[in-house]
């Protein structure tokens, strides 16, 4: 089986979710090739061999430094034809998912997104998808020979299998229409751990009492190498930027550990976090509904508990 993995990069680095996608492909078994776009260092791409990629196609066209959906679609669809790809694997992202949708239509492939575990080949080719915003799963059978899978975070374990990937330069035929959309500016938080990719997320709600009180929460995030998130009211009031809003209408996260501080746990918020492996809730209201969805809970004031937790974590290192 020939598997192609989209190795999405950000600022010249392969994203951690893309590494998960390579590991997923490796675990399916077969001939794993990755494809990366724009300016990326050769060493960064060779390192994908550690996770199972035998070869990395590098479409280094500088126009691909911007994540333009149509251009990426064209490159990947052509690479699938050249590589005789049976299965294309991508990690869910603002860019990856729309590209996957278009590639599936263009190449006539069966499509599944939000895939949470490895496919089963016991009868046909079935995958399990997360649906109803994390409240259920569907198991679907993918009929056509060619398939496109978009993975939810943590669909595969990151495992090093050794090896160096061979990097080949790849040039696809791109036309003006592929670059018809112009990205005129990009605003991006720099240096932070990005929310959708983080293994640990620390989120604050109205219980934090105001944007000026976020210091202890940010310190906790730093100690844990975690991303920071927030509830909808916090983002609506402008205490924190919209891209930190976790919930039904914001970002849905699936980290190993989600720590909610001063968030009551409205059902819309829970919809964004219910795929987390472990949930810790800190709230001074013992009746906060979030405790029902938590693995561990502390009833207490955030400004009392946070410094103690930070000290305990520092002490444990």
């Amino acid at each position: 089986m020939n598997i192609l993995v989209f190795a999405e990069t950000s600022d010249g680095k392969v994203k951690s979710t893309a590494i998960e996608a390579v590991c997923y492909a490796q675990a399916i078994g077969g001939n794993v090739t990755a494809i990366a776009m724009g300016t990326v260092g050769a060493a960064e791409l060779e390192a994908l061999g550690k996770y199972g990629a035998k070869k990395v196609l590098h479409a280094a066209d500088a126009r691909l430094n911007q994540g333009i959906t149509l251009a990426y679609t064209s490159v990947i669809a052509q690479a699938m034809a050249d590589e005789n790809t049976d299965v294309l694997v991508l990690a869910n992202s603002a860019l990856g998912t729309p590209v996957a949708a278009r590639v599936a239509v263009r190449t006539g492939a069966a499509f599944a997104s939000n895939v949470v575990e490895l496919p089963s080949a016991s009868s046909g080719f079935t995958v399990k998808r997360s649906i109803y915003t994390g409240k259920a799963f569907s198991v679907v059978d993918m009929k056509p020979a060619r398939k496109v899978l978009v993975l939810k975070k943590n669909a595969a374990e990151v495992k090093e299998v050794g090896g160096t990937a061979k990097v080949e330069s790849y040039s696809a035929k791109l036309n003006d229409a592929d670059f018809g959309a112009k990205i005129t500016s990009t605003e991006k938080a720099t240096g932070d751990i990005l929310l959708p990719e983080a293994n640990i997320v620390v989120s604050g709600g109205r219980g934090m009492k105001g944007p000026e009180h976020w210091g202890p929460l940010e310190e906790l995030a730093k100690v844990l190498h975690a991303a920071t998130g927030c509830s909808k009211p916090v983002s609506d009031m402008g205490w924190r930027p919209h891209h930190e809003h976790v919930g039904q209408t914001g970002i849905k996260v699936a980290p190993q550990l989600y720590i909610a501080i001063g968030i009551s746990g409205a059902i819309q918020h829970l919809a964004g976090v219910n795929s987390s492996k472990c949930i810790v809730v800190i709230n001074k209201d013992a009746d906060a509904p979030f405790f029902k969805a938590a693995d561990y809970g502390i009833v207490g004031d955030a400004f009392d508990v946070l410094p103690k937790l930070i000290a305990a974590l520092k002490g444990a290192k």
Partner: protein
Amino acid sequence: MKILVCISHVPDTTSKISFVDNNTKFDGTGVQYIIGPYDDYALARAIELKEATQSTVTVLNVGLAETEPTLRKALAIGADDAIRVNAEPTDSFFVASQIAEHAKGFDLILMGRESIDFNSGVVHGMVGEMLGLPSFSPVMKLEISGTSAKMAVEIEGGKETVEASLPLVAGCQEPIAEWKIPNMRGIMGARTKPLKVVEPKAVEVPVKLQRFELPPPKGAVKMISPDNVGELVRLLKNEAKVL
């Protein structure tokens, strides 16, 4: 400008999810259905653009007869006419194929970034590809001037400003517009607005549902004293193994 807004008819966010018929069918008993919350944002922005630019707004839903109240609500909010493709929306490729069949000739094709039942988040991309139009998602801001659009598109950790020419497809999310609540006049007027029912185009669906599953029940929460946070750190390390 002609605007098409594709809306999904989905269980309210607070619904309890369960399945019947040997886990092959969603149990709609007692479930309240709503316009998909993301689609609702797309509709709200379409109505704002209609008022600002002398446009018409058509809403489209792929669904069986029970979805008509949802379409009527969209008409009450301010859409001019509605199309219902008479089929069960079981698969994104199927739904996208039906939308593409009716979306030709529109300048702006809007919908939510994803439906909250199947969560695929891909119908906008598929429709764009089927019609040979650019597609953008998740769009948080959409301004139209003449035949060009200026959008804010969310990316991980930030946003991009993107410019493109119409026609285009956009998957929308907040804060593109505030949800609109229909007023009495809108509700009365919606009753007589045109709602066309069309039969679906035959499409071979490449993905077949085998069954639904529910996640295993959650264990009880373990409460820890605020004076003993060291215990929490120990449990996260040794029991949950997440540190």
